[in-house]
């Protein structure tokens, strides 16, 4: 993947240094009133990796994602995406960076008044209004097909879809602009095991094909074992560890132990080894 047209005014060597770090978060603090959610989060996501983010309920996984994509203004800290500072940017500059990433929200967040295919076209229409209508329709068609949705899903409205189909449609929309970076918020939550496994496979294959970097929030141990290169563990308002699953297990942290070595963790680990064998 060669470089994009330069966006920042930063000196070239400055850019090279950070070239492989797609997301850089440092000293991030978030609080809602009295309740402190993050107290100094440090996290780097490298180009081309799938980073899984885990943590108990209420540890602020979604808040971390929202801070990175700019939906939540943190109290303090640095957030850089593609080497661009994201906090306090004016709307126009932020928008240029935003179109290089795609976001899949937990419930899909499809626009309810548009069909699935039209939902996929929304970002393309927004940024490339001059595109030929036939090509626009073709792009929507192959994006929808790429996410494994049947052709008859295209003209349906979100309320007519099942949860899994909505997630796939949401993913198709997130991929509309061929982003380099993908944010997924619990993509396999609420899916049956077959759909969940297919979704994992889909993300892994899209990563191979499109060279994506993926920031993945999940509770799904199977997903972690199957596709994540590294896992970041959120606990006690910090990122307590980042690494591959074996690296995390070597740390001897009680919560991590319980997470990965509990009954579900062992089952997922067994399944992963069986698949590799």
């Amino acid at each position, binding site marked *: 993947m*060669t470089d994009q047209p330069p966006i920042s005014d930063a000196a070239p060597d400055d850019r090279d240094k950070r070239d492989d770090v797609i997301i850089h978060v440092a000293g991030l603090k978030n609080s809602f009133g009295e309740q402190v959610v993050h107290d100094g989060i440090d996290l780097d996501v490298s180009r081309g990796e799938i980073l899984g983010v885990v943590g108990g309920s209420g540890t602020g996984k979604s808040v971390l994602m929202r801070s990175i994509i700019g939906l939540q203004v943190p109290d303090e800290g640095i957030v850089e995406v593609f080497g661009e500072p994201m906090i306090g940017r004016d709307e126009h500059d932020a928008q240029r960076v935003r179109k290089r990433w795609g976001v899949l929200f937990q419930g899909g967040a499809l626009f309810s008044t548009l069909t699935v*295919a039209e939902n996929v076209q929304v970002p393309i229409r927004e940024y490339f209004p001059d595109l030929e209508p036939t090509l626009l*329709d073709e792009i929507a068609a192959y994006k929808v097909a*790429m996410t494994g949705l049947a052709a008859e899903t295209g003209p349906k409205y979100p309320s007519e879809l099942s949860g899994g189909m909505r997630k796939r449609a949401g993913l198709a929309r997130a991929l509309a602009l*061929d982003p380099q970076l993908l944010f997924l918020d619990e993509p396999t939550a609420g899916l049956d095991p077959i759909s969940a496994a297919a979704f994992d496979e889909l993300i892994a294959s899209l990563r191979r094909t*499109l060279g994506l970097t993926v920031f993945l929030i999940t509770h799904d141990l199977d997903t972690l074992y199957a596709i994540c290169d590294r896992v970041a563990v959120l606990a006690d308002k910090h990122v307590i560890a980042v690494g591959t699953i074996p690296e995390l297990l070597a740390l001897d942290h009680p919560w991590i132990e319980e997470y990965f070595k509990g009954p579900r963790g062992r089952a997922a680990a067994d399944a992963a080894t069986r698949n590799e064998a």
Partner: protein
Amino acid sequence: MTAPADYRFEDGILSFTGDMTLARIGDLPQRLTALTEKPDRVDLKDVGRIDTVGAWLIHRVVRESDIPVDGASEDVGHLLEQVAAADKPLKIRPDARPAFLRVLNEMGTATITAGKTLYGLLDFFGATLIGFGGLLRHPSRFRGNAVARQFEVVGVQALAIIGLMSFLIGIVIAQQGAVQLRQFGAEVFAINLIGRITLRELGVLMTAIMVAGRSGSAFAAQLGSMKLAEEVDAMRIIGVSPMEALVLPRVMSTVLLMPLLGFYAAMIAMIGGGIFCWIDLDIPPITFIARTREVVPITDVWVGLIKAPVFGLIIAISGCFQGMQVKGNAEEVGLRTTASVVQAIFLVIVLDAVFAVFFSSIGWI
């Protein structure tokens, strides 16, 4: 390499150059479609970055004439395969019908919907009465807390806005009346106007409109979103009757509060009118009150107080009914909320006309 996407066409070989990405695709699709001669091979060795849109364009060329692709790296080959695998026809929108049929269809649907809504409203009214009957037989199931809570939301919290509105309406009636009556030297009759119109009509009517906009719509939106979140279903499963827990407290509190609010509104409007009379017409409050007692028959108060609970019933029932009709998506909540307000105000005004005829015919003029 950041050149925009382009192509060369020599000796039957179509060589793409530049970045074949969505941002840099330019007019390449149109130019490719306009190609008259069919290529024998496609060459990709001079291509920079490529994304799915670029791959799709290459796939379109290759698909038409089934020709080999040269110079594709492993990644690009993989991308082309993926895109080719995803090449399935897809409809973007549901099929559109001819305009004439669509108009007929919409007229028919609207008529059926109107009929069904009326039927549903009657049905819901009946269900509310039955629920109320059940409550009378088993008073222990009465949810005092829920009713008290609705009293606060529907009544107490509405006092300020209804008071302000009524005060201003009283002033406006007094002022407009005085201007017209002054032409006959009969400004003092502005007191008759204020006293009678606020107690008989405007007090309760304006209150009904305000309550419909404030509370009827809130009922529809609350129940609608509870239905969307499957809360209503959960209640039914647990054995809590949504009618008793959600609808009856709202209906009862609105029915009980409307007369109070209506009377309050009329009083505040009279105060507003009285203050105007005092300032503009030099009629002191004591005279205003004495005159009002002379000219306003007690039946005017009854007229207002009899109408008010009926209006309250209509507002609460249409709000709850529309809320319980929500299904599907969030947009429905908005539509149903609007429908509940429109329906409530419309029915209130229709019934107000019926009441006007009725009260005249029994001699409460």
